[in-house]
């Protein structure tokens, strides 16, 4: 089962976590929403799969390339 590391492409904060660990996502479904530069930036599943780990919580500050979510596809 290949695991996919979803990294942040921006520096910002975690605005909303929409999914839970164990949830099965379809491709392009929103897992969490970051806020950066006053924009709400959805972080979506790059492929269908189950969320194995969510490394951040709402309100956390994140930096570019920081690991956010681990997905098992």
């Amino acid at each position, binding site marked *: 089962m290949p695991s996919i590391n979803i990294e942040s*492409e*921006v520096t910002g904060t975690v605005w909303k976590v929409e999914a839970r660990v164990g949830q099965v996502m379809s491709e392009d479904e929103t897992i969490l929403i970051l*806020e*950066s*530069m*006053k*924009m*709400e*930036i959805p972080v979506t599943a790059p492929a269908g799969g189950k969320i194995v780990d969510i490394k951040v919580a709402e309100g956390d500050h994140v930096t570019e390339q920081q690991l956010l979510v681990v997905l098992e596809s």
Partner: protein
Amino acid sequence: MSWQPELDELRKREAMAKEMGGTEKVAKHRSHGKLPIRDRIAALLDAGSFREIGTLAGKAEYENGQLKSFMAANFIYGTGRIDQRKVVVGGDDFTIRGGASDAGIRGKQIHAEQMANSLRLPMVRLVDGTGGGGSVKMLERYGYTYVPANPAWNYVVDNMSMVPVVAACMGSVAGLGAARVVTSHFSILVEPTAQLFTAGPPVVKFATGENLSKEELGGAQIHRKSGVVDVVVPSEEEAFRQIRGFLSYLPSNVYQAPPVQPCSDPADRREEKLLSAVPRNRRQPVRIRPLMAAIFDVGSVFELARYGGAVVTALARLDGHPVGVIASDPYIAGGVMTVEGSDAMTRLVDLCQTFHLPVVVLTDQPGIAVGTHAERRGTIRYAARAVAAVYQATVPTAEIIIRKCFGVGGAGMTNRHGFVQRYAWPSGDWGSLPVEGGLEAAYRSELEASDDRQALLEDIRARLEAFRSPFRTAENFGVEEIIDPRDTRPLLCDWVRDAYALLPSQLGRPSHGTRP
């Protein structure tokens, strides 16, 4: 009494050259998932169009005056056609002595670049070599050392201002080979089998103490975003597709206008979805790629500089006419301009200026990146360079302000002191600073003096909100036209013909040399 015997000798020698490094070495090369160089050239070019030059060059061994064995020079080149247009193509034969130049005949590399320069033909480099004169063994062979010079570099550099230069990194490429990949207008790295580095693992271990594999030092993972190449591809076939694709937008040289193709996609196509493509909520980003697909000829958007982050640069067509495109992806840091984005934009503008492609800017620019990280990197200087490229360019430019246009970054998206065919969407949102960022700073003294800071803040915000309408800007002729987004394609397809009518008088070499 003819010259047939010599012709037989010629054919025999050509056959020996085509054995390359020998059956074993060629089989080993293939087993790594790599095509031998003549197969690569054949896969790239129109069928049967390759005319090799210098096949006979190499190291011969004689016995009793008879040719006993022959090792061909490990650089293969010639002319061929891509979509029926003539190009010069050259590549390294990795099956012979690892493609190092000390086994090659330097003259072939020089002749290839000189030919492209003099015949004004696009130059394609399929690089799969371990560098230039980079073997210490040569000291023993020559009995002396030398001050290094990169072979053909006068032509390599001049070709940047003369013809489209495209390069693919198709194996482990270091040093001079790496320089030949990046001194180009468009470069590609083949992920499964290629790495690119200034020097490989042994030299690096000696220099920095790092003990790394080739992949760790210069594989796709490093270079997907490093900026060293435009794009990382999953196969050699895809690399050839990218090379052909890139060249299809450009003329053969700077003295010709870009090639216009027949177009079956109607110029008056009005996409309904454009009316709601930009979210009304200012905090929600717009998906730029579907938007671009709705405007430009179907299937014609060809992205460059994939390391550009929020800055999206591409070639595309409008009614069959090639154009350059600059846009933003607000899904990445809200669309701000970073060092990488500025570099991507500078290169796109310079490419279009060199080859006379009109430029379309889809403006959604919140501004240049801010914050400590951005400052440490000197971001505004790189952004200023991109803006300078824009102001120095003379190619016809059109701008569609689709959403944000703020600050020095927004101001610098087009030459606002020259003529730009400009249209704004009703979702346009512009100013020196967005109200959200600028309020607290501009009204600081009033806010500090107030009893109810929050209430005053809301009051000011509501007041200024009313002034933000694009219609007020239009009343003051701050923007010439506000349009129905669905009219974007028809308007641009009309404009592009005006733009192309200007090109003949602009053709020729760029006023400043083009750099990688």
